[in-house]
């Protein structure tokens, strides 16, 4: 069957098997290998991408179901060559080690900050609770997201704007 969708702002159309999972479509068909795969049971969250701005586990979505929708992956997080503050936060606070869970974690974190620009550590933990990291012990991930939130708050203050959620990346609701 033929499927068309927008991936990181670009229209793509491909001939696929109806049973192809979105994660394999992104990785094997489009070559977007930043999205990972780590389990058979929708538990690990290494595969998290955005479907119409909301984080989903792409191992649990058929590529066909994403037809006509907008998908964003880690490769589409940086805008115009500039890293998203979440990406910077992860580097600044050692929010990653092997990097395998990282794309999924960052996609969830960005979505969280879009909805809640000042999440508490507990809110961050809850947001990533469907995802597993075997390396970091999570505390540095929480710090990384806090870093991004603080950075964006500074940016807003510097720009002397009222404190409203800053949509810093495209594709967000």
């Amino acid at each position, binding site marked *: 069957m033929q499927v068309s969708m927008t991936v990181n702002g670009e229209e793509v159309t491909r001939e696929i098997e109806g*049973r192809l999972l979105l994660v394999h479509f992104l990785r094997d068909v489009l070559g977007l290998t930043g999205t*990972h795969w*780590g*389990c058979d*049971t929708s538990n690990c969250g290494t595969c998290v991408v955005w479907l119409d701005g909301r984080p989903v586990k792409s191992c649990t979505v058929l590529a066909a179901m994403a037809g006509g929708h907008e998908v964003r992956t880690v490769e589409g997080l940086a805008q115009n060559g500039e890293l998203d503050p979440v990406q910077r936060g992860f580097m600044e606070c050692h929010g990653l080690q092997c990097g395998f869970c990282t794309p999924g974690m960052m996609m969830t974190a960005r979505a969280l900050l879009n909805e809640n620009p000042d999440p508490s550590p507990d809110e961050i933990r809850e947001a990533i609770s469907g995802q597993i990291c*075997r390396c970091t012990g999570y505390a540095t991930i929480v710090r990384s997201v806090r870093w991004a939130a603080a950075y964006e708050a*500074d940016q807003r203050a510097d720009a002397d704007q009222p404190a409203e959620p800053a949509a810093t990346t495209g594709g967000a609701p």
Partner: protein
Amino acid sequence: MTTVGDRKPAGFEDNDQHPVGHGRMLRKEDPRFVRGRGNYVDDVQLPGMLHLAILRAPVAHARLVSIDTTAAEAHPKVKAVVTGATLETLNLAWMPTLSNDVQAVLVTDKVRFQGQEVAFVVAEDRYAARDALELIDVEYDVLDPVIDVRRALEDAAPVIRDDLEGKTDNHCFDWETGDAAATEAVFAKADVVVSQDIVYPRVHPAPMETCGAVADFDPVEGRLTLWSTTQAPHAHRTLYAIVAGLPEHKIRVISPDIGGGFGNKVPIYPGYVCAVVGSIVTGKPVKWMEDRSENLVSTGFARDYVMRGEIAATRDGRILGIRTHVLADHGAFNGTAAPVKYPAGFFGVFTGSYDLEAAYCHMTAVYTNKAPGGVAYACSFRITEAVYLVERIVDCLAAELAMDPVELRLKNFIKPEQFPYTTKTGWVYDSGNYEPTMRKAMDLAGYEDLRREQAEKRARGELMGIGVSFFTEAVGAGPRKHMDILGLGMADGCELRVHPTGKAVVRLSVQSQGQGHETTFAQIVGEELGIPPADVDVVHGDTDNTPFGLGTYGSRSTPVSGGAAALVARKVRDKARIVASGMLEVSADDLVWDKGSFHVAGDPSTAVTIQDIAMRAHGAGDLPEGYEGALEAQITYNPPNLTYPHGAYICVVDVDPGTAQVKVRRFVAVDDCGTRINPMIIEGQIHGGLTDGVGMALMEIVAFDEDGNCLGGSLMDYLLPTAMEVPDWETGFTVTPSPHHPIGAKGVGESATVGSPPAIVNAVVDALAPFGVRHADMPLTPSRVWDAMRGQARPPI
């Protein structure tokens, strides 16, 4: 987005201090990872690449009667179907394990564990390969399995390893250490003897990336390129050469970015060999990536020790001796990845951090119908089991003596002036200063206040527990005269080349699975040469481009390869001194090194930098007599001893009396790993290990039913900690350098995995003290804690 300068937000630790050498510094590998540009094995796409899937046995013990592959072969997308019979014709049906045992690549005679490899299919895509597995028809004659480790040696037990000549039972090996008679003597004279049955259940490292490989065999050149999830690319290459009979110089093993290892990626698995065979048979590159359940049911598990611990002491709390008997479940093949002279790994350090009069251990290892493995999951070669045993039994003694567990430990620590300290089992601890580390942890935790709070809560019927553990690890295997893997000495090579402009490349034999080698090793070289770590490129994980060495596991990268990196840089510095002596026209002895430059003694204005020297060494001008040019060196470092990091951990838990749910409220970890190269990375390693500890203590177990069905075969059944189960870690450190390591560093990657489970279990047992509980085995799930509260604690296996 609005860009107003590049100011970083206040209130966060500055991890980006651009040190020349050691210090906090952001990781050099991160820019590619945060962009999704890592290159993991499953990311490798080659033109014409095929996909391999493995058919696995549905039962634990069965004779193979027949395999019919006709329908699978007829599948339009299938390129090859291979069975054990095919491999037998290639003499590849069996392969050696890392413990001098053999393991079936594909079953030829008998299935020995559920999930064992029976056949494989190579097809045009992943899905078709899986489809074709369904078309293979296998007939099994099911046999009684051996599942209960305690019954493996009974006369009536079916013999699992009838492939081994003359084998009539399931005995794997017996091992002992220490002095049985001397230990008996101290137990005889002791005022107090406490004994406790302690089980360390089977768990699994479960890295987020499963195991896999891409094999590309070029029949014209006879050259094999193998991308694989391996922590030890050089050792693997040599073993492939031995197993497959391929010439070693025609094998290139590439271990690109690895999504976590934790020991899971040390052994050679049948799947890797299948991928190689698949590529040879089809003449195409072949990718094999196992799924999560294959990872959990078939690859290297960890622990599975059934222990009895005994401790002897005086009434006033002086520990005299420790004795232990262990029954070790090694699964169907002895696939332990440990130095060959150490069949029980480094379990011999079960004497812990204490000055004893005598110690003894006797171990019996057996075969069962379970997956092989044993040494994995950041265990530092079984030190997890040893530390758990000693730290649990010491707590049992404290309870018996009604003594505070910290006080008992402080009273028995090896004293700083006793180092180097030879334990009663023959380990030479290089350095340690235990009491300050313990006291620092107590200060950070507010130990006295916690005990007061606990007393108040107990009075109200609330269940709060405080658990302490103190560990000493033996890491950095190892001196080659004692330690080898299948005859390969555990030394590590290192090559360093300084380019004409003063930038450098260092090539390592170890390999990172997330530990940040590209940063840490650049810092080690930077420190020694006085150049910014940003100017040092680190190459690793490719046998064609790195020197020989044994790889990353057992926390050995910094102790062994880190030593190599420091020494090779000093060798380059010595050469630079010669070049500088020519430039400054003085004798080399008259030069003074000042991190990054040489100057004539007494005249700093004469300084020539490493960059100047590098240009001169490659330039057209004269060089000192006998100096050929270039600025580079290589070395193989054979460490004189292991390094012995230590740490003090304090855990605070609350147990819900209504649901028996354990909540880890606080965890304080104070680690001493000697010289600290990058504190940010060290802290990350500690955090990760503490999380493993929560998993093992409270959640994780690979259990089996009586038929040998694995009950932990998915992440729905094998529970791993999420951000909800772990607290915000509190860490601290002390520094006791290793006296023999070139920069005084000790390994740290596994410290927290080793040290945290006993702290958590001790805390839960402490919380349950009002119920008279003295011990409860891991994992402390609500149902098991509930049982313990009702006086019905039972072993998990």
